[in-house]
């Protein structure tokens, strides 16, 4: 019948298309972004953060970076607390992405100090040797346009103050980008609640290790620590480490859990074995070198 009646075919096809559409696409609006998934403490972006987000969109960062941590062991260990619906109510558009050429960024905020981000954007390979991320240092040359940003905030209906807009003058696109990076995933206090608590005694499994064995551990230091503490522990963004006079257990704790407010990320994802190797390497490698 419809084979001879195009109008009937169009109506029937539209009906077939609309069933799944209504159930899986329209219906979720009843629950999503309502009281059902609201999270206290989730705040709209500030003018500077929102502009950073718009630059992130303009440069197509979402082509290589996702922004959603799945409730899977490897995702949570690598990136942090899994993402929740209520955290995204101010995201227009969503930026979850579909491909991790680079790492997920949903929980990036607070992981590194601002300086790390400026240096990394300027030259990714200076911080992460074999990275394939393009340089974005040129963002620093572009001043922000406070008027346009104000209009965007009005369009989004986000709260802002006149001072906040005025404070944008003299700032550049890099500042906005870093502000956005530091906001990501920080609306819930997951770093504090997920912080590892070390219980029981810590015993250095490599106590008294000789210099030659430690040499093999240098790559762990180079890959994870050198960008901030310098190739020879001389200190760059982070402090100098040569002759670090912390106790072994304290050093372990700092590396393992990080310093939430100090810009030192947690390296628990390396596992206890590698962290102990780092403790020994940092504390004794150069010391012993001196004896040679």
């Amino acid at each position: 019948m419809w084979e001879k009646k195009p109008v009937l075919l169009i109506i029937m096809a539209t009906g077939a298309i609309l069933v799944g559409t209504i159930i899986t696409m329209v219906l979720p609006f009843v629950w999503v972004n309502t009281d059902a998934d609201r999270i206290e403490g989730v705040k709209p972006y500030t003018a500077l953060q929102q502009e950073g987000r718009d630059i992130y969109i303009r440069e197509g960062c979402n082509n290589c970076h996702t922004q959603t941590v799945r409730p899977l062991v490897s995702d949570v260990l690598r990136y942090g607390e899994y993402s929740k619906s209520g955290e995204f109510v101010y995201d227009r558009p969503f930026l979850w992405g579909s491909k991790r050429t680079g790492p997920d960024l949903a929980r990036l905020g607070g992981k590194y100090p601002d300086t790390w981000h400026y240096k990394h954007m300027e030259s990714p390979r200076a911080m992460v040797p074999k990275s394939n991320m393009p340089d974005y240092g040129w963002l620093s040359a572009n001043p922000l346009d406070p008027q346009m940003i104000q209009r965007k905030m009005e369009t989004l209906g986000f709260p802002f103050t006149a001072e906040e807009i005025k404070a944008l003058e003299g700032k550049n696109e890099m500042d906005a980008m870093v502000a956005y990076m530091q906001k990501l995933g920080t609306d819930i206090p997951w770093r504090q609640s997920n912080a590892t608590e070390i219980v029981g005694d810590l015993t250095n499994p490599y106590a008294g290790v000789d210099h030659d064995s430690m040499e093999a551990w240098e790559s762990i230091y180079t890959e994870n620590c050198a960008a901030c503490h310098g190739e020879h522990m001389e200190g760059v963004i982070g402090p100098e480490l040569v002759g670090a006079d912390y106790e072994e257990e304290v050093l372990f704790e700092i590396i393992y859990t990080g310093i939430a407010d100090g810009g030192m990320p947690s390296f628990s994802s390396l596992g206890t074995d590698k962290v102990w190797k780092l403790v020994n390497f940092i504390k004794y490698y150069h010391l012993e070198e001196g004896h040679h």
Partner: protein
Amino acid sequence: MENRAYNYAIVRSFVTWSVIWGLVAVLVGVIVSFQMVEPDLNFPPYLTFGRLRPIHTNAGIYGWGVGVIFATFLYIVQRLCKTPLWSDKLAKFQLWFFNATIIASAVTLLLGYTTSKEYHEMEWPIDVMIIILWVAFAINIVMTILKRKEEQMYISLWYMLAAIIGVAILFTVNAAAVPASLFKSYSAYAGTNDANVHWWFGHNAVAMALTAPPLAMFYYFLPKSTGVPIYSHRLSIIAFWSLIFMYLWTGAHHLLWTPVPDWIQTLAMGFSVMLIAPSWGSVFNGYLSMNGQWHQMRDNYLIKYLILGITFYGLQTLQGPMQAIRTFSAFIHYTDWVPAHIHMGTMGWVSMISFASIYFLLPRIYGKEVYSIPLANLQFWLILVGQLIWSISLWIAGVLQAGMWNAMNPDGSLTFTFMETMVEMYPYWWARCLGGLVYMAGLIIFIYNLYMTAKKGKPTVNNAAAAAGRA
């Protein structure tokens, strides 16, 4: 009016322009593949991976994919309805507006005007242009069908109508946004809702732009090329209705393990697996139509393209549902496995069918025999090998990286840092560059063959009259 000739001029123009945009898509694809391995090949602000990759995908989908849809549908609709196009003027407008839209898309994306929504990156003024373009196309197709001289509508026409309706609904809903300026807008939906609406669009754009239309072409050009009818009309009816009904439930398989409500993910997973049936309905219909005709795989290069094309469709629609299962998705999602999957669909299925369709059209729209069949064969092997290098190397890369992402030490910590897994990808990314280059070589041969056919092809014996517009 009644004696007006079939409009083949418009088909010629769309063939030409779709191929030009296809070359742009592949060329930009090759460029970004090199940027992946050699970051110094990024030249900010315009020529960076982040800005070029959407030009690659959108030139592929809207320039090449939709361009071929326009070319073939405007041809098929006239033949199946046994009547000329409803409006030649509207078709002419459609051609100019199509190119204007593609050019505007490429320029604005280079300038960084983007919504970031994958396969729908263009900002709102371009969205308006695309909607106008689609409506112009839809009116001409529907009106031509309404005034047809053949009462029965062949299966290709159903797929066409479903595609026209489907794309219109999907694109318009997903385009909804509030403008802040001429080139900046914010999505009408936020966060999880935006993600769910977007992948409802994203996956069904694959259904309505890259599945239904190539099926319409396949169902028309396969019997035309073999000279024997399609195996089962009934099977095509069942496959059609179940395909367009089930596809729309599956978008959230792109969002497994994200904050989108679990029940939507579960429905998407279930319907994705069920979709194997209608997909393979068409695959079997294609294979069984070859009963007693398999020798044509050797004798007729068109059949080689069409049967390989439908085979890649079959593989694609098995691999897709597999990826839509939660456990498998948990392992493979976000790795290079996924682009490998997509490229089997685009380079294998959609483009194979498109190449065959265009080769079939050439003698009919130019009145000249295809310039060189050996070149068409050479092209076949180059695009096949290029695509296989591309996909197979990245499937391996995806499994490797997924394994490394998930590897754990006995104390429950991760074995590898992110960068330790990423550096392992470089050899496979180089292989992708090679695959892209081989594929592009095939495409350049295709274009040369088209050009020489138009310039130097021998006049056809049978179709000269048709091409002159008197059929």
